[in-house]
């Protein structure tokens, strides 16, 4: 029953990591939602509780069509990615310090803790996407996306962006308190400039060029292209988006690793 010493192969390393992440995931569910079975329902319900009232409210205020496209699918495909971004980012603020106790176990790395949290948020968000789609589809408010592969691609990029942003925010928040301070205003401003409210096609050319530099706006273009198909003109560029996100992810991973140095464990 002895603990093995160092010198693990990559294969064993991966097996250990999978086990650690699994254990963290279960622990996260217990600590966040309690041990009652209702806790698991909350993972899906939490994003839904945010999304459904807001979507109904907006579509009631704004009428059914805008710029010639249906408002409900436009808002639906805009708001759920916002929740993904906000919840992932919000969850990782100072998360190393908050989970420093876990670092007592040398097998647990900060990346494991991050992955555990991210998986839970992403899983909850995807479940909410499906549940809210089913709900709105049942009442006839939205249709099946016209170009499903494009929709999936867009959502994949949106998930990737949310992960990269969370890595950066999480890593920076360990160094400096004001990252936490600007996170709130930033995540509200994000509503305006992200592409939630607009299509690149509606913007004047110069502004459109600037907007399309943003990877999340690119992802929104692809998501909207997926939802509405040929009915609208979109500008998504998967190659550019993947490149920018890869750079941001590497930067985030580096910050995260550096952040470890700043952690003081009680």
């Amino acid at each position, binding site marked *: *029953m*002895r*603990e*093995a*010493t*160092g010198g693990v192969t990559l294969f064993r390393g991966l097996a*250990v990591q999978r*086990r*650690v992440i*699994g*254990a963290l995931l*279960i*622990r996260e569910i*217990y*600590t966040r939602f309690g*041990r009652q079975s209702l806790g698991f329902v909350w993972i899906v319900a939490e994003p839904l509780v945010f999304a459904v009232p807001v979507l109904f409210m907006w579509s009631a205020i704004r009428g059914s069509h805008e710029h010639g496209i249906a408002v409900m699918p436009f808002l639906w495909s805009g708001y759920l990615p916002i929740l993904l971004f906000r919840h992932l980012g919000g969850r990782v603020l100072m998360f190393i310090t908050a989970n*420093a*106790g876990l*670092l*007592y*176990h*040398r*097998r*647990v790395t900060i990346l494991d803790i991050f992955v555990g949290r991210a998986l839970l948020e992403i899983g909850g968000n995807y479940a909410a996407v499906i549940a809210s789609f089913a709900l709105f589809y049942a009442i006839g408010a939205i249709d099946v996306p016209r170009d499903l592969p494009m929709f999936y691609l867009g959502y994949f990029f949106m998930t990737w962006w949310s992960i990269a942003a969370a890595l950066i925010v999480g890593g920076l928040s360990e160094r400096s308190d004001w990252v936490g301070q600007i996170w709130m205003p930033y995540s509200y401003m994000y509503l305006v400039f992200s592409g939630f409210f607009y299509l690149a096609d509606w913007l004047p050319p110069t502004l459109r060029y600037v907007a399309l530099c943003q990877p999340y706006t690119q992802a929104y273009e692809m998501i909207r292209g997926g939802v509405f198909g040929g009915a609208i003109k979109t500008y998504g560029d998967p190659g550019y988006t993947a490149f920018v996100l890869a750079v941001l992810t590497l930067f985030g991973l580096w910050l995260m690793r550096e952040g*470890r*140095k700043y*952690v*003081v*464990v*009680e």
Partner: protein
Amino acid sequence: MIRVSGLCKEYRAEGKTHRVLSNVSLTVNRGEKVAVLGRNGAGKSTLMRLIGGVEVPTSGRIEREMSISWPLGLQGGFQGSLTGNDNMRFIARIYNKPFDYIRAYVDDFAELGRYLSEPLKTYSMGMRARFAFALSLAIDFDCYLVDEVIAAGDQRFQRRSHEELFERRADRSMILASHISDIVKAYCSRALVLHRGRGKVFDDLQLAIDIYNEL
């Protein structure tokens, strides 16, 4: 074997850098029990956290050729809002040990009874110490990092810890941070004396204790 060489650790607070450990070296062989002596704030717990890999050193090297427990102290390593059982489940998953075995061992050694299904934050210091120590013995490491925990338990717990570490696991190593010389004498053969972040290893334990008492 654990080889610590030229270890330094600095913390930044209020814009100032504060050096807690300065060029500390130490070698621990298999089966050796080494004491770390030092007054409050000498850097004992920091050294334990660095050896355990909880924090990373500012400079210096730590080579670990043995599996090392997490630092067994009066706090840390557990989630207070989770029950003893849930904490054990988490540890069992991480180290890939059967939960039933871990539970049975901890139940027997720590004698916490029904408290195992209570949140850890309701435990007393002594209970926490017993829980942490029993759990690490159940996982079975090559080297135990013990930070005052043994001193926190009662007589019976101290006797059983002694049995476990010396009779049943004589080949295991231990680094024991303490400032109680009786406990150090009962457990260790060598000592590292820490003073203001600097450290010196003594092969003569009594000499180390005498010097520590003079500090």
